[in-house]
């Protein structure tokens, strides 16, 4: 468990988090590995985990009828996959698949939810950090919607 604290301390999402809380998170964490092509979770599954990617790339996918799986976004090392564990109904909205070999730290969201109920300050801290992740993703998505590579009026 000591090793995981050190790993978590380096994660951008958790930058500046005090040692006590990091220890708490480490208590809910474990190291995981996914082989290329391996599915982490599917749309509709219960969402009780979030992953901090330490190496490799994860593709968020959605299934398009008659076209198959389409990647909507890829997540790289240092980034976080999953916030559905924070909000009811606690179910995944997309599929996730390892693109290359992925090493990640998985944190038990269900366990954390309980701890947040007991300690709202912890809950606020985590919520704030995840809100930042979501805002960043939203900004990048908006940038993609601008279609900057488009032709203009041709």
């Amino acid at each position: 468990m000591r090793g995981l604290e050190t790993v978590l301390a380096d994660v951008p999402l958790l930058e500046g988090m005090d040692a006590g809380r990091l220890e708490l998170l480490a208590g809910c964490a474990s190291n995981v590995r996914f082989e290329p092509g391996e599915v982490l979770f599917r749309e509709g599954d219960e969402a009780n985990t979030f992953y901090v990617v330490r190496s490799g790339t994860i593709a968020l996918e959605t299934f398009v009828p008659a076209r198959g799986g389409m990647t909507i976004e890829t997540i790289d090392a240092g980034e976080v996959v999953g916030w559905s564990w924070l909000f009811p109904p606690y179910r995944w909205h997309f599929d996730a698949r390892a693109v290359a070999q992925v090493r990640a730290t998985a944190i038990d969201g269900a366990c954390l939810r309980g701890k947040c109920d007991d300690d709202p300050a912890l809950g606020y801290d985590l919520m704030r950090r995840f809100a930042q992740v979501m805002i960043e993703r939203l900004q990048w998505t908006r940038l993609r919607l601008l279609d900057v590579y488009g032709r203009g009026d041709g």
Partner: protein
Amino acid sequence: MVILPTQLEALVGALRDRGYLVVGPTVRDGAIVYDELERGEDLPTGWTDSQDGGTYRLERRDDEARFGYAVGPHSWKSLLFPPRIRLWQARRGENGSLEVEEEPVDGPPLAFFGARSCELHAIAIQDRIFVGGRVVDRDYALRRENVFVVAVNCFEPGGTCFCVSMGTGPKVEFGYDLVLTELLDGEHRLLLEVGSEKGAEIVEELSTRVADQGDLDAAERAVDAARGKMGRHMEASDLHELLARNLEHPRWDDVAERCLTCGNCTLVCPTCFCSSVEEVTDLEGAHAERWREWDSCFTIDHSHIHGGAVRPSGRSRYRQWMTHKLGTWHDQFGTSGCVGCGRCITWCPVAIDITEEVAAIRSTEEGGDARA
């Protein structure tokens, strides 16, 4: 030396005899414009102009002064940098290659008769752009060489003149073959000074007398008087910095409400140099031409890229013109772009006054000095 006004006839004649196309001020369509002078009589004898924002009127003088007025809507740029010229013609060779024939510039050499100090500064400014950079503009260079300049010291500046503020006049300091100072105290005569060998040579054909101290003093008084009769004033020592730090000043919104983006200012300004190229072809596509014509930063098209204009608003286009003319011209070409001739003020249909705009920005600058 001194000549009588009638000798101007001989001077025009001598220039024409040497093959020059003499261009100078003449009255036409209610204004004093630049056109070919066939005779000294074509000069606007006894005329003066009354100029103000958006206003230009000719009025009769009570003397026979040949140069008793300021500048009109024309400038010498129409001759050195014509509004529309063909650059070259091309046809496809046998293997599809381009066979290009550049447009010859083989008209008669030009003589500018009556160029003012501000105008000589304007020509020098355009010289820097067209022949003073890394690439020389062929057409301008060909027209520019061999121009004969008969300059005139102003004694009757106009209501919109501010050459004193810009350090460009009223006294002619350079760029002339001959310079005249018209004297109306007592005998009507002109002080004539030579500025080049070409000038010295042509003066031999005129009937002249030696200037005495009285003539020299009168000339100095006339120019001094002109200095004191400027119609406008502009504090010009810090324009580059002032404008660079006020690109979002609310005054631009104020001007934008008045400016029609008609581009008159760019047409009459003696230093404005924007141009565009037009490709012309015949229906078979066997013959092509490239033409160059005047353009203006006030058009929407001027800043068009990728399906839109970088400067779509009138506000941004007026700001571009003024900050370029007075500010970024220094960065691009090492001098100011403005010579204080006042044409933009006179010929603006809504009387926007560049000196007033500068003063307004300066006096209401936030956190700046409260200079008048």
